[in-house]
């Protein structure tokens, strides 16, 4: 009897340990980001960090305004969302309401492939295919620009939105559909005026997940959007995102422990704060708007 209870205890503790490892890793990452950033903010004031309009920590005239990098991230993410949300949502509605089973069996795996393409391939696609096409129609678009990176990033996150939205739409009970048709609504009206609002909390959660993915995307923007921090909302000029900056400095010869080195952590912390806030918003939205179906 004793050995059996003991064995169960061991297993329980082992599983607890596995769960703790995830928590400890997260705490470890936060600790590293915070401690290095704390050292950074002793030298550069938080006010300067948040309000300066230039980001040039590696050069002679040093400016530490994170807004330049944030605007790059926001610009590319914004364009990506503008591309992905309408497409993703429409695809989800189509797959759920309109398509035949055969079509669904073909389209769904193809969408999964879209999600599986390595982001660096997307990056080259943006640089070598999308940018020349944009320059053909709009000659003033630069070789590196936020627009082509944003468009390709949008294509990359379509599967995130379409897959999750489709699952949520599927979960809406049939009674709602039947009631809507019974009232004489068309398929289009049923889909977009009854089902999408009913599934809205899940759809918003999927959009926020897609935003988080886009904010953290590194390779596409590092290759196609440029490496010049620029506080602008103009999508035709080179910009630099937070992630691309971190890559640029990590691959260079910045000495460990120097102020330039600490800028990576300050930038990383900003990124982390953004994602954290987004996660919380998603949680709150889910809680508030989730409709419970009996």
């Amino acid at each position: 009897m004793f050995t059996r209870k003991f064995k169960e205890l061991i297993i329980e503790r082992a599983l607890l340990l596995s769960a703790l490892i995830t928590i400890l890793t997260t705490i470890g990452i936060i600790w590293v980001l915070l401690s290095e950033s704390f050292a950074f903010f002793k030298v550069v004031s938080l006010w300067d960090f948040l309000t300066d309009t230039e980001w040039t920590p590696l050069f002679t005239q040093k400016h530490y305004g994170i807004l330049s990098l944030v605007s790059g991230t926001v610009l590319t993410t914004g364009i990506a969302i503008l591309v992905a949300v309408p497409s993703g949502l429409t695809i989800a509605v189509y797959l759920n309401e309109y398509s035949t089973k055969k079509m669904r069996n073909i389209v769904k795996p193809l969408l999964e492939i879209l999600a599986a393409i390595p982001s660096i391939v997307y990056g080259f696609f943006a640089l070598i295919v999308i940018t020349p096409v944009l320059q053909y129609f709009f000659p003033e678009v630069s070789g590196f620009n936020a627009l082509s990176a944003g468009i390709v990033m949008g294509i990359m996150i379509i599967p995130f939105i379409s897959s999750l939205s489709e699952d949520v739409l599927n979960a809406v009970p049939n009674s709602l559909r039947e009631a809507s048709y019974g009232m004489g609504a068309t398929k289009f009206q049923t889909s977009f005026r009854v089902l999408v609002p009913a599934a809205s909390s899940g759809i918003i959660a999927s959009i926020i997940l897609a935003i988080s993915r886009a904010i953290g995307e590194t390779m596409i923007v590092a290759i196609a959007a440029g490496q010049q921090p620029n506080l602008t909302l103009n999508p035709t000029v080179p910009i630099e995102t937070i992630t691309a900056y971190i890559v640029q400095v990590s691959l260079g010869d910045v000495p460990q422990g120097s102020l330039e080195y600490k800028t990576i952590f300050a930038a990383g912390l900003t990124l982390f704060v953004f994602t954290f806030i987004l996660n919380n918003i998603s949680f709150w939205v889910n809680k508030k708007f989730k409709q419970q179906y009996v």
Partner: protein
Amino acid sequence: MKIQNYYIMVLVVSSIILGCNNNGKTKESNIEKLNGTIKIDGSSTIYPITEAVAEEYRVSQPEVKVTIGVSGTGGGFKKFGRNEVEICNASRPIKQSEIDVCKENKIEYFDFSVAYDGLAVIVNPQNDWAQNITVAELKMIWEPSAQQKITKWSQVRKGWPDAPLHLFGPGTASGTYDYFTEAIVGKAGSSRGDFTASEDDNVLVQGIEGDKYGLGFFGLAYYEENKAKLKIVAVDNGKGPIFPSAATAKDGTYAPLSRPLFIYINKEALNKPEVADFAKFYLENAPSLVGEVGYVPLSTEEYTAQLEKLKADLTHK
């Protein structure tokens, strides 16, 4: 069960047979086949030369793996000082701080100059207003105080269009960056910060090629390779505009942007036969390969003298 045993036996026997074939390369006359890995990193300017040498080397010694990184001269020296690479490509001489790091980690090295470069100032082919540029104008564009101030072509020279100036250049880890800032601005590492910075010159080529108002600088080889997509600008140092070429880079008339290019080799790595062989191969074949790549070879005597120095050190081991 019997069928299973049979298949397992087939698997084991075939893997033994295939496994035996590894070192089956026949010895050609008395050239010994070497194997191993040689790690090289550093300047993107030198990269085309080292890559050409490595490619030729692979023909005679296919078992030796040569990997070449492009972290910039500074990045390369960082790794060199930590004994992570055997050879560092450098487009500027080693700095005192880097020498100190090497001393601290007990790393001794050889340095060899392998070519001359005429740092090219490049614009987009659609740029029809800039045929030449003076050193003073380059300084005005690139010095630190130009940050956010000099943003249009018309501010550089009267008569140039009132269009935005898009700048491209190597990043702060690049030897080309150090050299250009020292030669043009007067202090190495001193420049404005609002330009597209990348240690990879191909990124700069891509950037200028796609931007009508682009202006940038990088090693001559990258211009030579992409002649159709770029336009080179003559640099005027007070004696008239001069284009970089084999002649002008060598005799120094293309001033102040002609410079020697180096490789630094870890002395202890030369104990490895493949590294020593590669180093000798480099100096023997540089005269022919450097010109092919687009840079300016040194005189034959300079190569031979360095080769003799290397051979002397190797025989002393």
